[in-house]
């Protein structure tokens, strides 16, 4: 069972505040730890590998955040983020089955689990999608530039889908669910223009909203 904070909780009960956000958990030491560094958020969008390749042609050694499933397959990651705490255990096991060099990956989610390093308890407010949650973490950690790859925020299929989902379009559809996801993002970026200024995207609706690199 997880308890989340609605945006209307403000900073009640928070143990840290930074850049317009607050919360609890064991993350206070992460605040501003990425200052002056670019971060790349890799989501599940179908173009994630091509877009990451493009970023790596321009930026040397950015901090790479994997989001959900794609973390199993990316060549190198520094942080792995998901709103689905229990799934991370299985995804981590799959990655470990692949032959790779030794790597230090930090796992982030919202519930206390033995395999999760950083628990963003009571983060207020919290984005609805794991990709935006990862973007939020990078911002709180002080990244100078946050580049979205495979986070189109529209109805593009995921890298493992044969066809796009028909029940959810990540903000690109007309139902209340999609509208809510997009409305939340737009409202947050209006509230924190400095956050929006730091984000770029290589594809999809987020590219038109945040701009490209």
């Amino acid at each position: 069972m997880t308890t989340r904070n609605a945006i209307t909780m403000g900073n009640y009960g928070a143990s840290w505040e930074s850049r317009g956000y607050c919360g609890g958990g064991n993350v206070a030491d992460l605040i501003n730890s990425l200052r002056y560094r670019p971060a790349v958020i890799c989501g599940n969008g179908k173009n994630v590998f091509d877009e990451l390749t493009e970023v790596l042609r321009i930026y040397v050694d950015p901090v790479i955040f994997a989001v959900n499933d794609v973390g199993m397959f990316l060549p190198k990651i520094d942080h792995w983020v998901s709103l689905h705490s229990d799934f991370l255990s299985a995804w981590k096991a799959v990655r470990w089955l692949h032959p790779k060099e030794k790597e230090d990956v930090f796992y982030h989610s919202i519930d206390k689990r033995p395999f999760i390093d950083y628990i963003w308890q009571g983060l207020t407010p919290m984005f609805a999608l794991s990709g935006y949650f990862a973007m939020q973490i990078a911002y709180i950690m002080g990244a100078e530039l946050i580049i979205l790859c495979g986070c189109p925020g529209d109805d593009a299929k995921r890298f493992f889908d044969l066809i796009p989902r028909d029940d959810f379009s990540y903000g690109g559809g007309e139902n209340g669910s999609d509208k809510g996801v997009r409305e939340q993002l737009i409202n947050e970026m209006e509230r924190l223009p400095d956050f929006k200024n730091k984000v770029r995207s290589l594809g999809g609706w987020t590219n038109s909203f945040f701009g490209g690199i």
Partner: protein
Amino acid sequence: MAVTNRNSTLYTKLSVNKYLGDARDVGGRAVPIPFEHTIVSGETGGASAGVRDTVNLCVLPANCMVVGLEFSSNGLWASAGANGTLQLGDTGDDDRYMIATELYTAAGSPVGSDFKHQGLAFVGQNYKPTADVIVKGEYRVANPVVGKIFRGVFWVIPGA
């Protein structure tokens, strides 16, 4: 048979015994305490206590009197086939303010496709917490749909 006229507790306090009332007795300044939540991916509403996620919505200050609740959502569950419920309460009573309410798109909505619940549960009406209390929403039976929104406002009268 003779009819009987009785005094309410409040009438007795103020008008018969002439006790000094405070703002809560006479319906003084009402203060809105809004809440809003966008459903986050992975939020769970299960059949048993261990798998029902909750969301902290707002804080009702100590010694206020809760006098009203307005609640709206755009249908937290997709359809009648997945009729989960949301209830509002606190650590002392998990449905003190709103009993388990089905909030899917066609659940008797008085305002088109958006569901609106009106009114405060009986046990929550005129409730006076003695310490600050966090209002919690709790999902039951089925998982709410990511991106859906519920929002509302509590009306309270401060104790002083």
